[in-house]
């Protein structure tokens, strides 16, 4: 059965395999045949098959006051313990416009960078528990 494998979609031996890739702000999905390097799009009997994308997303913007969707009670999609860092970045951007207060801009930028580190660790743990670091000790 050289050149065949278990098709991850049909659960049977096949020479083609469904694959995906990204290109030009789109996702390409096709059956790939490695023996002739050909890609074939969905056929009529595969029409309407559901595709599920799991992805990392950008936080949605707050609506601006000129918009009908504006609300003072809107909240960020980011977890609440990180909202303070978002505020810090906005404060830093404000101080960047004042040449005599660039030190303050740097202070709030550093606070934001600390928040980035904490956020990455939080995302990495995926709320599944703490990460244990083993510190090497030289005897």
């Amino acid at each position, binding site marked *: 059965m050289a050149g065949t494998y278990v098709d*991850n*979609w*049909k659960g049977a031996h096949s020479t083609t*395999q469904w*694959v*995906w890739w*990204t*290109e*030009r*702000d*789109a*996702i*390409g*999905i096709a059956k790939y045949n490695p023996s002739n*390097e050909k*890609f074939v*799009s*969905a*056929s*009529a009997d*595969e*029409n*309407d*098959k*559901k*595709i*599920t*994308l*799991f*992805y*990392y*997303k*950008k*936080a*949605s913007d*707050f609506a601006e006051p*000129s918009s009908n969707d504006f609300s*003072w*009670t*809107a*909240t960020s*999609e*980011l977890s609440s313990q*990180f*909202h303070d*860092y*978002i*505020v810090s*970045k*906005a*404060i830093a*951007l*404000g*101080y960047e416009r004042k040449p005599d207060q660039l030190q*303050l801009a740097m202070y709030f930028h550093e606070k*934001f960078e600390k928040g980035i580190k904490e*956020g*990455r660790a*939080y*995302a990495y743990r995926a709320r599944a528990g703490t990460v244990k670091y083993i510190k090497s000790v030289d005897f």
Partner: protein
Amino acid sequence: MKLKEMVELVQQHHPELGVTEIVKMLNIAQAEYSSRTRMLEKATQFDLATDQRYYALDDSILEIKSVDMESADSSSDHVNIPKLIGRPHRRDLT
């Protein structure tokens, strides 16, 4: 923290800034924070269409983690399909 509280905290430092400007700054901060931490994860679904190769991606998608496809046996199972390394040698624009 509600938007009102965030705006008020920024205004304590920058009382000269208007609400629109502060909201724009908060949006810049949120976009940078979410793209650098990869903190927000989501899933979305769409249907395959006959002879269609490419499906447009929403601007909010930073990175695709994985892709599942509805099983061929008409069950509700979804199976993971692998990511192609690189791009197709023979390309089309369908």
